[in-house]
């Protein structure tokens, strides 16, 4: 499904197709909902939600998740269209296919929500996160930290005799891996932004 960014389109065009009867195991990047309707497996989906940039809209979206017991694994939000007063909320959520479908439908029917894109099923997408990691240590551990940072292409944005702050961007998995390698080298403090994601191609 393509998105014509910037062109207002009626929310009415998005409706649920009843699922095709094809078994599990199909690619998670397929454009069709091929999973069995009654599957109980927990899936993780990345949703990109375009909303009106107005006071209280984020609270309303988050209230939906907490009120209905849906998970928020990660959430980022920022204005993306100043003249059109639109923000994009990127949410990583998890649940059974029926729950994921309900989350999308409930988001879509909210008045300030313009569009809900499930990046996990609508084709390939890019997802990135930024983290700032402070590692406090001395001697050989400090050197090792620098070497690992170079491998991961992390930048040093602060250094003192006893600490470094690394800035790293990448997929959440890459950031997890980097943190795991840093932890044995000293005291680690971590700040992460959460996932921003966007569909590949047109």
């Amino acid at each position: 499904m393509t998105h014509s960014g910037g062109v207002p389109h009626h929310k009415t065009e998005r409706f649920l197709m009843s699922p095709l009867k094809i078994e599990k195991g199909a690619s998670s990047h397929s454009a069709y909902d091929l999973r069995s309707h009654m599957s109980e497996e927990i899936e993780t989906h990345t949703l990109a939600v375009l909303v009106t940039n107005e006071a209280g809209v984020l609270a309303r979206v988050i209230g939906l998740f907490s009120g209905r017991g849906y998970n928020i694994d990660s959430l980022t939000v920022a204005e993306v269209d100043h003249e059109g007063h639109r923000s994009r909320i990127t949410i990583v959520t998890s649940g059974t296919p029926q729950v994921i479908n309900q989350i999308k439908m409930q988001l879509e029917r909210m008045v300030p929500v313009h569009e809900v894109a499930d990046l996990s099923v609508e084709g390939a997408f890019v997802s990135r996160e930024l983290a700032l990691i402070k590692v406090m240590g001395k001697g050989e551990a400090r050197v090792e930290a620098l070497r690992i940072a170079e491998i991961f292409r992390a930048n040093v944005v602060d250094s003192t005799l006893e600490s470094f702050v690394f800035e790293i961007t990448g997929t959440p998995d890459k950031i997890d891996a980097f943190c795991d390698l840093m932890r044995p080298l000293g005291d680690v403090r971590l700040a992460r932004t959460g996932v921003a994601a966007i569909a590949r191609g047109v």
Partner: protein
Amino acid sequence: MTRQMTGAKMVVEALKDQGVDTVFGYPGGAVLPIYDEVFQQNEIRHILVRHEQGAVHAAEGYARATGKPGVVLVTSGPGATNAVTGLTDALMDSIPIVVLTGQVPTFMIGSDAFQEADTVGITRPCTKMNWLVKETDKLASTIHEAFHIASAGRPGPVLIDIPKDVQFATGSYTEKAKTKVSHYQPRVKGDIDMITALVEAMETAERPLFYTGGGVINSGPQASTLLRELVDATGFPITSTLMGLGSYPASGKNWLGMLGMHGLYEANLAMHGCDLMINIGARFDDRITGRIADFSPGSRKAHVDIDPSSINKVIHADFPIIGDVGHVLEDMLRVWKARGRKTNSAGLAKWWEQIETWKTVRCLDYKADTKVIKPQYALERLEALTKDHDRYICTEVGQHQMWAAQYLGFEDPNRWMTSGGLGTMGYGVPASVGVQVAHPDALVINVAGEASWLMNMQEMGTAVQFRLPVKQFIMNNERLGMVRQWQELLHGERYSHSWSEALPDFVKLAEAFGAKGILCSDPADLDDAIMEMINHDGPVIFDCLVEKHENCFPMIPSGKAHNEMLLGEASTKDAIDADGAVMV
């Protein structure tokens, strides 16, 4: 050339522009400027209630009885928080209401000012949408947008919080016609391919069934007219939820009665045994489905709903159709007629035979009594004596509500006002006030239990002040009946706090309010007492003392399936039939 005026004046102008003729409200410090403007005009009538919750329920009754959004005006702080129950009720039952609340001045927000509350924060989960207006120039367009959202798509409650300094300040008024078109435009036309697939299934179905709900009422009277045409043309049986009663007439040939937890035996078994279930404007609520794993296991289901999130929320739909029920019914009729008006007549004949055998169980029969008024008997007599009037029925919540749904017959939509989704006790008294305001010459009856009735009884003052001749038909069993029933059947008869003690003398209470009180405890006097209630020109409180330990049957206990209904003791073929019960 835009007109300049104060925010308070804008509120009144915008309401007039929207065609509002009635506002239910209660004044307070934060809304004084708006009340000043209300005082200085005559087109909009303001009904002063006695509690803000009453204002919201009255607006709900008004909305259901007219199809127009109900309008509420209350003050900040406790005024707004008192409206929360009514807002939640309207959200659950999809009733269009616009609630205007005052707020402390913008520069005092967040400082714990007098009568300040985070109204938009508190009401965010219980409204379809809400706004805090911080600039007077935006106030008019916000009000117009609010009315659009309250009524468009699946109707619901909206709230506008208006700080006092915004009410005092001057700004430009935006006309309704000049307000920017909202991006919120829900789909109303159903997908014609899916509709055709459904019609194809209807042509061959052996055991089809229409399952209709509140969505038919919300769509407007035309939807009910189209539904009747479709049902009568196809000859399919039809059942309805609590919220949908009246869309198909109770006297109709194909009517099976209400379905669900306290629905009729034949309706529930038809749902269980059908092969094509056509859901029109209902939402597969848990009161209807019973245990989901066993819900209508052999049927394919069509689901027509204007809210896409309702479809496949609980029950999988084989034919999901998103659209306004009225538009979809129109298309269904057109396609079915164009394809030759086919049905599976052999299959249908056998299906109706099966349904007729289920009807012989006579699940609504009860043991009649000559000494004590049975609640079912009271409602049978009320039905007989009022059905030819221009009648509107409200209810409170509990056993009496279920009996009212079972024993009263609804011939038209918009004549049945009850709190279904949220089940709010205290809904009926103010709702009856709202309905009577909308229809001053009609017979408006609130069927109530004594416990529910006391929750918002202060609204009798409103009824007397505005000369609203509402009839409060209290079925007084001195018990919290529905709770007691569950305690009897499921909690080993441990009646924990389910009786009404220290009840007032309702006749004296009526007189204290300046209304008429009637007390009746003998079945032989019931007819005369009801006629006295109907003929009295003014509000009436009718204290009908009924059997204290009657259970409401049929009942699907929670966690059971449709074909595991409990039936009452009198539901065998040999029991006294309904005609006999009347004469005893």
